């Protein structure tokens, strides 16, 4: 623009102007200096000083669980783990260097050390963030990101450890990326519950696929959900629990009473402290059936590989229409991710990213605590209640970043983004 251009040629006007400029410079630099003073860490949650985080030890002095072996993965970042029989399945994430997370690895876990037996590469995948095998061991479901090549892949496992691709979806509602995909059988029918990523202008949604014909998945329910996204689900006893981030946990009847998978009936909602609801697990007692307790994983802000935040929350479902949060578990300097429960022993294995794995005693009344065991907001603190029973931190000071943990009758396995698949000695009561 040239308006008033002549004035631009006028020179400065002496010392007063110079002093003003110097004042401006000082003000500018003072802001820079104030920034420097507060530069210790780009992540706000409490972290150890310096640039290198070491896994925080258990606050209660709970025993450390040893590993019996590591199935090392160095070329990709490892994400989810699932175990069926003596085979473990791990998915992969993001890009390590220029190698993408487009692989699912199959491990023989019959021995002390996981042994890689095969891998499948998923077409046009940048992240295979979730993997699960059906209860009958015949199907493997893989969730695929990113946008716009998202979707799912279904593999037949009828040839044991040689998966055969049945379908890799493209386009449609899943195209923006499937972040998690859960297999669950409701009234004898196998379904895939797909948490679909939002994109700009495209809200997140939950899409449920009927897998009666696995090669031709059929959408039976699709619902916009979550703020800003739905992250995960848990299905048990005809109830669907949806992890809807800042919208909390939704509870839906999909077969328990009058609802169905294709026409779920909304039951209730609970917004846990801090929101950021990432995953849920409805506890069952092997003898008594559904318990009162719902474990809710909160995933706070984090820097993948080094820092994390977020608590485990306990919700009382005694009145399913009016759930309430009664307890929590916090690890200073780390945050929870996925949960797997040994229900016969009443022990919950909780992946805690840079803090490894924590084992919580979830048997009994989780809302029964003394005044000294309560936080200022009245919730019971599981740590003060002595319910932290064990931890896995890996060998020495090796940095870990545990994405998932899976308890099965075969053993306990933890997927470590940085190192691969750990087999962990199970905790005992």
């Amino acid at each position: 623009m040239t308006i008033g251009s002549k004035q631009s040629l006028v020179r400065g006007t002496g010392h007063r102007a110079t002093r003003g400029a110097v004042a401006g410079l000082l003000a500018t630099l003072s802001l820079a200096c104030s920034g420097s003073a507060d530069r210790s860490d780009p992540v706000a949650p409490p972290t150890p000083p310096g640039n290198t985080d070491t896994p925080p030890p258990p606050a209660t002095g709970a025993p450390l669980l040893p590993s019996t072996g590591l199935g090392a993965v160095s070329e990709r970042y490892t994400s989810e783990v699932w175990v069926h029989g003596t085979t473990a399945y791990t998915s992969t994430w993001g890009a390590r260097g220029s190698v993408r997370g487009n692989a699912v690895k199959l491990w023989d876990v019959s021995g002390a050390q996981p042994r890689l037996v095969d891998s499948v590469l998923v077409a046009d995948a940048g992240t295979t963030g979730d993997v699960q095998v059906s209860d009958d061991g015949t199907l493997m479901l893989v969730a695929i990101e990113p946008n716009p090549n998202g979707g799912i892949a279904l593999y037949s496992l009828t040839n044991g450890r040689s998966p055969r691709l049945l379908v890799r979806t493209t386009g449609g509602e899943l195209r923006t990326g499937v972040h998690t995909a859960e297999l669950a059988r409701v009234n004898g029918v196998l379904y895939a519950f797909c948490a679909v990523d939002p994109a700009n202008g495209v809200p997140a949604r939950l899409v449920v696929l009927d897998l009666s014909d696995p090669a031709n998945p059929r959408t039976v329910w699709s619902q916009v959900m979550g703020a800003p996204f739905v992250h995960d689900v848990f299905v048990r006893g005809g109830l669907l629990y949806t992890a809807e981030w800042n919208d909390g946990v939704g509870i839906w009847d999909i077969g328990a009473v009058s609802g169905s998978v294709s026409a779920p009936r909304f039951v209730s909602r609970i917004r846990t402290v801090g929101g950021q609801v990432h995953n849920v697990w409805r506890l069952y007692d092997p003898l008594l059936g559904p318990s009162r307790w719902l474990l809710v994983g909160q995933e706070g802000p984090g820097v993948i590989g080094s820092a994390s935040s977020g608590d485990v929350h306990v919700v009382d479902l005694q009145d399913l229409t009016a759930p309430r949060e009664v307890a929590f578990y916090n690890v200073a300097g780390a945050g929870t991710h996925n949960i797997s429960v040994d229900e016969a022993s009443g022990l919950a294995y909780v992946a805690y990213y840079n803090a490894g794995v924590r084992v919580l005693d979830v048997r009994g009344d989780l809302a029964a605590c003394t005044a000294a065991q309560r936080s200022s907001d009245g919730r019971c603190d599981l740590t003060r209640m002595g319910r932290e029973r064990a931890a896995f931190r890996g060998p020495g000071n090796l940095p870990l970043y545990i994405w998932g943990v899976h308890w099965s009758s075969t053993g306990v396995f933890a997927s470590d983004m940085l190192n691969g698949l750990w087999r962990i000695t199970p905790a005992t009561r």
Partner: protein
Amino acid sequence: MAQTPEGPRGTLGVMAIAVATQADPALANRRLREGYLTQPMLMGALRRGPLRLSGMLNAEGYTLRRGELNAGIYGEGYVDRRHPHTLVHEAMAALVSPGWQGPGGSWQASLAAGRGFTPYGSDDPMVRPFVKYPVNHHHAQIIERVQVLGALRWSGVSRTRGASSSAAGTAPWAAVEHGWFNGDEPTSPFAAPQWRRLGDSRATRLVVAPTPAWEWQASHAFVRSPGIVQGGAFDHRQWSSALRYARPGSRWRYGLIEVARVDEGAGRERAFRYESMLAEGQLALGSWLLSARAERTDRPEQERLLDLFRTSTGHIDFQIVGVTRWTLGTLQLAAPSQRTRVGQLVPFAEIGVAHAAARRQPTVFDPAQFYGRATQWSLSAGLRWHVGAMRSRVGRYGVLADAGDAAHLGTHGHSHDHRQ
């Protein structure tokens, strides 16, 4: 364009830069050589009585869809390539009040509305000397938003004229601006803003100009969910302060020292912080122009898409995969402007070196592993073409537009001749 002693009634200009760039390594230890037609723009302004109109059309959506190789740059789903800007880059209208005498000098106010640059941070890199943008573009500017903004300017007593003066004189002046705008970033060069989000974000800027050559600004912005247009992503709280010097015709043409900070979080709870410091300047060597820039900026790393130069917008799971500190140096030499039948032509060459280091360990984004080396070199050569009136400042509306005219900057070829 007509010009009167009171200033031109209107201006019109068109520009584009043809540039070839070699980035080594661009990523995965690969050297890339590419050519672009970058910053193709049509710009105009009209001034009639109290009304000020300004507009810019940017055609990068047609010429730069894959993005331009630019070490360290990120934003709007592009990374290590600069994103194309929106077609309607600016369309602003402002009404300026009559001046009035008040405490210490004369005062004037304005009200502006439209789509354009918010009252935050420093001048957009497009009117600065270099063809490659600084990494801190999204730390230090918030642009292409629909906004309503008010401004109040004070002008002191002119030391050269000995009387209270408008900003068209040499008097010191100061101004404060406040704007309300939509927080959502553009999702494509042709995407419309989310009109329902107008007003969910805000920015305030204080500008002090003790002389026509020196100017200091400090500004703050709150930007609601820039990463996910429908809302729900982290909010940004941004701070910027910059000291700017511009004296066309002198040996030291231009200088800028800038600091900026971005906090990401929900409400007042901060999750991540990124900081930036930048200094740049321009020196006239006869009729050649030598420009240099030094920068240190923190960049969030996000999961890459299948195209490794792209990311999703908004952080998946509110997580990042690391913070990279970029330390960069850039040098540009621009030849004397050549007046031709088709317009002004300015040949230039630009070299840049960038060093990337992870701020935290362990990290899943290791710059040396990802790029192949921790240090990247960039070499560009090109030709800048323009016809008509160019702009030396952008993002100045109403009383600021009038004031900014007093500090014409000669950069990026603009300095040689602003009109043809």
